[in-house]
């Protein structure tokens, strides 16, 4: 079976940002995303998801390299300063490139 290289952009941030973030992803040209509830620890302390203000989400986007880079740059400029947010980009392989 043939596989095709794509990028996986993973964003971990505050649950409060979910709807805003999804608007940005939709506008970026990515074809889809996956959101999961998350908890953990970072610069902003322990985020234990005990109640909405301390809840995190993990958003995953599979897309082409250019979209991943431009989306990452945009999120960095707009949200890094004021929100608890990290993101990273990984190489992945997919079977149906037209979906992403």
């Amino acid at each position, binding site marked *: 079976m043939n596989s095709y290289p794509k990028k996986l952009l993973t964003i971990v941030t505050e649950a409060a*940002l979910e709807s*805003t973030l999804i608007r940005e992803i939709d506008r970026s040209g990515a074809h889809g995303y996956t959101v999961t509830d998350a908890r953990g620890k970072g610069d902003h302390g322990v985020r234990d998801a*005990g109640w909405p*203000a301390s809840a995190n989400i993990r958003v995953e986007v599979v897309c082409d390299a250019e979209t991943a880079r431009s989306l990452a740059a945009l999120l960095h400029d707009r*949200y890094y300063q*004021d*929100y608890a947010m990290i993101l990273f980009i990984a190489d992945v392989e997919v079977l149906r490139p037209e979906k992403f």
Partner: protein
Amino acid sequence: MDPVILFFVLGITAGLLRSELRLPAAVYEFVTIVLLLAIGLKGGIELAKQPLGQLLPQMVAVVALGFVLALLAFPILRKLGRLQRADAASIAAHYGSVSVGTYAVAVAYLGSRQVSFEEHMPLLLVLMEVPAIIVGIILARGVSRSTRWGSVVHEVFLGKGIVLLLGGLFIGWAAGPVGVEPLEPLFMDLFKGILALFLLEMGLITAAQLTGLRRYGVFLVGFGIAMPLFSSVLGIATAWMLGLSLGGTVILATLAASASYIAVPAAMRISVPEANPTLSLAAALGVTFPFNVLIGIPIYHAMAAWALG
């Protein structure tokens, strides 16, 4: 002491001792939803009995009170607390708005003492949620074009709290006392049990805020106690002008004294992201909520009784 308060104390104690105890997030959500709907329904039933026009002076007065409280808190936070503009504005918004949890405790407090109050109070509760949020955003950034008012309005009016309270009010109003009767086992009879679970989780959350408080110190603790006392006096004065009963006066004083921790934090996070949420939550939840629940409400009761002579 009312046993529901003991659940709050249990939550704080367990949290401070770093117990493994935590309510699943879905349970906390559910409990909050039931409380909000129950409060809305009760108010709605009452609204069905009287024309809304009669309540207009009260509605206008509490909206004004919400604006005034936030506007008074801001200079105190800015000058005395030397807080950044955004932080001061955000905390002011929290204190101008109201806490449904504190309201529920006041209702339980009056209920166990058989003090009656105007049952349409949930309507005033909804109205008092909003003005301070608008003041907070304007104080933080002026009336600038960069504020996306569309998303602010969406965040404020379509937040969970307002939707459920207004929804409950509407359903209660439309169905009337008889229509709501079949729903009473869940929303009315279980109210205290649900409130106890809610307060248990609030105790755990409060304990978590106390660590944040240690970092920001004395001013926030002082503000978190002095501001509700001051606000409650304004609440009592407003209730006196409106001619409310003793119970109604206690409720309005409690509403004025309470600080939001559901609607306002969510709105501020989106609209004033540069404000540090740890500060406002440490004050609102770490200090003011436990103060009001444990000591404040009996104080407001005594003050109201004295004022109404």
